């Protein structure tokens, strides 16, 4: 047993103090017939040297291909300082900050995070984070239903320009409580007011707007927000935090601003890591703060009048309210919030804007290079940020498979989620993709498509 400190002497003394003969006696309240003698399916233990070799081999098997997928998870530069500090045991191995006096570091960090993410989204208050961008949309929808007291319908409009997996998470999470998610088809690749017209005047709780949308296109957020508010519908913004360095924050959309903003902190110093752990963020206006799910940290004073930080508004939460809580969530993604807060501190307002600009510039360069390849065209001609849909002259999957063989992860195949778009692929470049990377992709794509034509 690799991590137990007990010597035979220790065991003997401890059993004597308990008044037991052997460790086995401590399990004498468990019915005999339920006991198991062996776990045959578990392999023999590996020491650190052995597990290190195994994991290195597994990681090497997956390699480090050149990645051009975004679709909700982005391959940004991660400063060394982030994980050097985040991996410190005092952050890494601490628990939820219930004992405030022994957790001031985590609590103050969350307060700083709340400040940064509120400002980035142009909202007044933030919680301490949720699981990921998908669960954040689900929780925002449930929150909207609590917040919108005049709406009885529990109907949430989700345009098809919202990330398809976010839509699935929202349905799986909230439909048990009777929430209805109604998809709004967006045939033009963006949410047009004409797509929404048929809902005018109906009892609808909220509309989710993703900016930039799943295809990378920019939605006309001002007009849509004003339309929703005119129809007594709350607006939930699902946004990419990097984009907010240069794009209008949800708090300023339309004449009143969005009501709830949410998204994923992954672009802020969190590695792709096959999908997690990431952290969802959720911000809102002060008037809705008591409807928020999850933990919230507040600044207060101690008995000497000195500044300190504590979890607050806990009357909303499961450990107090049990069955009447705003959510069953009892964690935040603390370690990822730590990473995101350090990231935003290192980048600052100007550094983050530079990242956003460089991502956008690289994507424009990528789109230009790929659309010069015979058999490739741009799907939607629309102002965009950071991501774009291309259409190929043949099915996408075999092309992506061939690119993967050449060490290039060439984009996200849209044919499952959007069959109406034909042979469509979503591509993305971040500030980490160089001109040489983009050329390598364009060349490989040209060769792959040429070979496919020859084979046919």
């Amino acid at each position, binding site marked *: *047993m690799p*991590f137990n400190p007990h010597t035979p002497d220790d065991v003997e003394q401890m059993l004597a103090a*308990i008044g037991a003969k052997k*460790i086995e006696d*401590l399990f004498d309240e468990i*019915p005999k017939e339920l006991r*198991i003698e062996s776990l*045959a*399916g578990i*392999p023999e*233990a*590996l020491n650190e040297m052995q*597990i*290190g070799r195994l994991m290195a081999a597994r990681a090497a*098997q*997956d*390699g*480090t291909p050149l990645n051009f*997928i975004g679709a909700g998870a982005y391959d940004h530069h991660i400063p060394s*300082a982030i994980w050097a*500090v985040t*991996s410190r045991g005092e*952050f*890494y*191995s601490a628990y939820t900050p219930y004992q405030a*006096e*022994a957790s001031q*570091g*985590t609590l*103050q960090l969350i307060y*700083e995070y709340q400040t940064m993410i509120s*400002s*980035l989204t142009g909202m007044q208050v933030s919680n301490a984070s949720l*699981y990921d961008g998908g669960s954040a949309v689900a929780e925002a929808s449930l929150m909207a239903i609590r917040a919108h007291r005049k709406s009885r319908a529990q109907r949430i409009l989700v345009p098809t320009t919202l990330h398809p997996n976010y839509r699935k998470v929202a349905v*799986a999470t909230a439909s*048990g*409580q009777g929430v209805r998610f109604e998809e709004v088809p967006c045939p033009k690749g963006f949410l047009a007011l004409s797509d929404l017209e048929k809902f005018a005047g109906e009892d609808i709780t909220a509309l989710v707007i993703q900016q930039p949308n799943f295809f990378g296109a920019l939605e006309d957020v001002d007009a849509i927000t004003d339309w929703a508010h005119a129809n007594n519908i709350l607006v939930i913004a699902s946004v990419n935090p990097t984009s907010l360095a*240069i794009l209008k924050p949800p708090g*300023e959309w339309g004449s009143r601003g969005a009501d709830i903003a949410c998204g994923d902190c992954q672009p802020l110093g969190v*590695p792709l890591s096959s*999908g*997690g*752990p990431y952290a969802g963020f959720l911000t809102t206006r002060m008037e809705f*703060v008591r409807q928020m799910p999850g933990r919230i940290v*507040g600044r207060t004073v*101690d*008995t000497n009048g*000195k500044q300190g930080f504590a979890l607050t508004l806990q009357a909303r939460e499961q*450990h107090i309210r049990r069955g009447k*809580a705003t959510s*069953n969530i009892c*964690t*935040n993604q603390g*370690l990822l919030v730590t990473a995101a*807060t350090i990231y935003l*501190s290192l980048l600052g307002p100007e550094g*983050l804007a530079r*990242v956003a*600009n460089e991502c956008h510039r690289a994507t424009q360069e990528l789109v230009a290079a790929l659309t010069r390849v015979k058999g490739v065209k741009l799907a939607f001609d629309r*102002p965009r940020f950071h991501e774009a849909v291309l259409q190929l002259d043949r099915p996408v999957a075999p092309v992506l498979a061939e690119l993967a063989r050449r060490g290039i992860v060439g984009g996200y195949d849209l044919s499952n989620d959007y069959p109406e778009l034909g042979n469509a692929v979503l591509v993305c470049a971040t500030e980490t993709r160089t001109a040489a990377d983009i050329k390598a992709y364009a060349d490989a794509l040209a060769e792959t498509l040429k070979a496919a034509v020859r084979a046919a």
Partner: protein
Amino acid sequence: MAMLKHPEKIIFEYSRPKRGAYGQWPTEKQTANAVAADIPEALRRKQAPLLPEVSELEVVRHFTRLSQLNFSIDTHFYPLGSCTMKYNPKACNQYAMLPGFLGRHPLAPESTGQGFLACMYELQEMLKEVTGMQGVALSPMAGAHGEFAGVAMIRAYHRARGDLARNEIIVPIAAHGTNPATATMCGCVVKEIPVNDQGDIDVEALKAAVGPNTAGIMLTNPSTCGVFERRIKEVAKVVHDAGGLLYYDGANLNAILGKVRPGDMGFDVIHMNLHKTFSTPHGGGGPGAGAVGVSARLLPFMPIPVVGKDGDRYRWLSEKDLPQSIGRLSAFMGNAGVLLRAYIYMRMLGREGMHRVGEFATLNANYLMARLAQAGFDPAYPARRASHEFIITAKRQARDLGVTAMDFAKRLLDYGFHAPTTYFPLLVPECLLIEPTETESKEALDGFIDAMIAIQKEAESQAEFVRSAPHTMTVRRLDDVRAARQLDLTWKPVAA
């Protein structure tokens, strides 16, 4: 342990215009205006967000100092009941952060993820073995998320059978708050049943509670009272005979690892807190991982994605493979990096190590309970064996000395020990729920016992001193009422 003794400024208070960690900024290849030229003016941000302008050293020093204001497993004994604060091996972090794992995009083709998927598949198989379940899905991202998946599967199961009336979830009164909150989130009605004076479920009350509306029962075993539910087979029979299913809250799985399996006790669905039993880090409140295991009848309803194996190739199972799935609970694959850490930990424990976890966690808890009882403290269930945790009630101290469980908890911080869980479960007055875990040495436990004895003496001679603890942290007890009434949730610059 270097605990910082001074408060640390807010990061914004270090900020100066035009300062920055320039080495982290990308080199601009075009001016910002040229890049953004194709973004309509109306969609652009006008005012820069409030982010600090600080140097890299200032950032590193600030956050390092903040870390030093925390207790953690690496620095302190952390006997937090129901939380299983055991050592988080460094190897798990190191090898989960190899570039091949960190750089992999969640939507990248399966052909570029066979190494990762092999780990996930083997993790599923190992978790099936230690729990005695027939299938495991890894995507739930925390214990409460796993609970949600579990209750949603129970509902889906009844619905698929056309058994539409079953919407009641029974929970013992001692259950974690997440249990009733989860039932509500799944659209169920919560029915609470009492626990008897030995910490066991009141089986007669259970018999009266079940019926044609029973969807299932949510149980922790060992229970939150720190004792093994001895009549578990009878409980299972009562619920199954009534047409309900049994949900196992895996919060206390550490106690029985390698000794008894939820699947053998009759449970139909279980969530495992990988951040407890399988030692992935708590990270100051997350990320966790709440993998779920199911019996054969719930296999079709598992949340996607699940890792499958065709020949020697691993692949994601999706809606096409599991058309009755309760659906997708995370945007991608749950907390994949946490799952890798749990995989590494399980491989390092191996078969023998699994058995030792339950044994030594139980040995440590029973030793601590016996020694505290000998020192004059009152175990809530003195006639019972402790599982991996146990309850001390400070009811007598509160009544006679005016010193509460919370006062003991706060004074322990001064002695360099994290407090036990206080005031949970709610049914034991002045409750301290203590869980030492198997990775603590006898000396660490003895140090904790000495501190408890010393605090008891202080309570008898200078109660006010204990009541006003902690005395050595950077802050004293905080004004929670003010925190909630005068909400200060974001820093604001002082107007110049």
